[in-house]
């Protein structure tokens, strides 16, 4: 919570010391946006209990996401763009390009009901990708975030075949200009990390912030284990679905309205 206040103070200092008009305007716009994100942000900090750097992730927390497909904007791709920007993905959507989050259209042919929703790694509690990985590179962190340890991934792609959600991609070509917080490289499989680099410093994943900033508020991120937290409360009070619940994977990502 401290960090949050600091972050805010930093911003106002910056606003005061900038001197070019365009920059100031930009910052003003930024401040408005920051205000908009404040509400979910506060909720998020409320459940996160900022973890000191030397403390490992804890089993007491399970990170999860609730996506309201009724609120997801028609044709809006803010979450996808924000993910690409945060994680240094190219944004291309060819068969060999990495996509960590995609917008999916679903339509009921009988009733004509139409929804859009973002699809990403569901951070399964019982992840098939981890089951099949021959090297131990696919792994689940104590707080439920499923990751690939690129140091030992051999690029065999078993996990890609095992994932029911097509959530994983293989990096086919050498990469340059990676983000310092998000190492990625040729020959390794990768997928959504829930922006683990942001979560570890008490921020929500980039897609969630972007959705809020775009005014849709369709994505909620938080600790599923915190009964008083916003996400557990929402899950308790509203009907929600796991995609392919029949597989018993107990996904960390849940959907409303489908």
């Amino acid at each position: 919570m401290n960090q949050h206040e600091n972050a805010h103070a930093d911003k106002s200092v910056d606003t005061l010391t900038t001197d070019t008009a365009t920059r100031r305007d930009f910052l003003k716009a930024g401040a408005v946006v920051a205000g908009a994100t404040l509400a979910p942000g506060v909720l998020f900090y409320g459940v996160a209990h900022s973890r000191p750097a030397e403390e490992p992730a804890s089993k007491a927390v399970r990170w999860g996401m609730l996506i309201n497909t009724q609120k997801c904007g028609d044709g809006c791709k803010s979450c996808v763009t924000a993910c690409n920007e945060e994680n240094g993905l190219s944004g291309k959507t060819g068969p060999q390009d990495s996509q960590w989050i995609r917008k999916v259209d679903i339509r009921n042919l009988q009733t004509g009901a139409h929804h859009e929703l973002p699809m990403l790694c569901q951070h399964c509690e019982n992840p098939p990708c981890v089951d099949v990985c021959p090297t131990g590179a696919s792994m689940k962190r104590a707080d439920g975030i499923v990751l690939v340890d690129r140091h030992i991934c051999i690029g065999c792609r078993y996990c890609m075949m095992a994932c029911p959600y097509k959530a994983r991609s293989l990096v086919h070509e050498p990469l340059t200009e990676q983000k310092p917080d998000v190492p990625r490289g040729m020959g390794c499989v990768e997928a959504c990390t829930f922006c683990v680099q942001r979560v570890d410093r008490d921020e929500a994943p980039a897609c969630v912030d972007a959705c809020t900033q775009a005014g849709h508020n369709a994505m909620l991120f938080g600790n599923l284990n915190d009964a008083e937290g916003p996400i557990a409360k929402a899950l308790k009070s509203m009907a929600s679905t796991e995609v392919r619940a029949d597989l018993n994977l107990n996904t960390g990502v849940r959907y409303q309205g489908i």
Partner: protein
Amino acid sequence: MMAKSLLKRGIGVMLFAVGGLLAPLSVAQAGVDVPKLPPAKGASKCVEDTDFMRRNHMDLLKHHRDDTLRLGIRTTKHSLKGCVECHASEKTGSVAANKEDFCVACHSYASVKLDCWGCHATKPAQKSAQKPAGHPSAVSGSTRAGGDK
């Protein structure tokens, strides 16, 4: 008796070996072809003694990478990102863009292949000069850094 003379001979061999190790070093100090490393910026001192780092940086990094990735421990003292922030050269802004840059200079001298840079960024995160100051990750990055050792 036998044992004693063997021991003596052993010591002789060891001394010879040490002499052998030292000889190229003194030549090197005379300025033959030791790598010239670009100066580190930032802190005046490395996180560990230079001699220790020369021999053990790979072990520290390997240990740290497992702690960070698998356990979520985010201390910055032995993080690769920290190395890059201090050791990126003035000229290229990178630790591995050309032969004179910090990592490459030494590794090509020692003839040890480097795999880190297939995935990791060789340049420090761009500071607010390039990135808008209001960027959330830039802001919290700086507040977080203060809390770490």
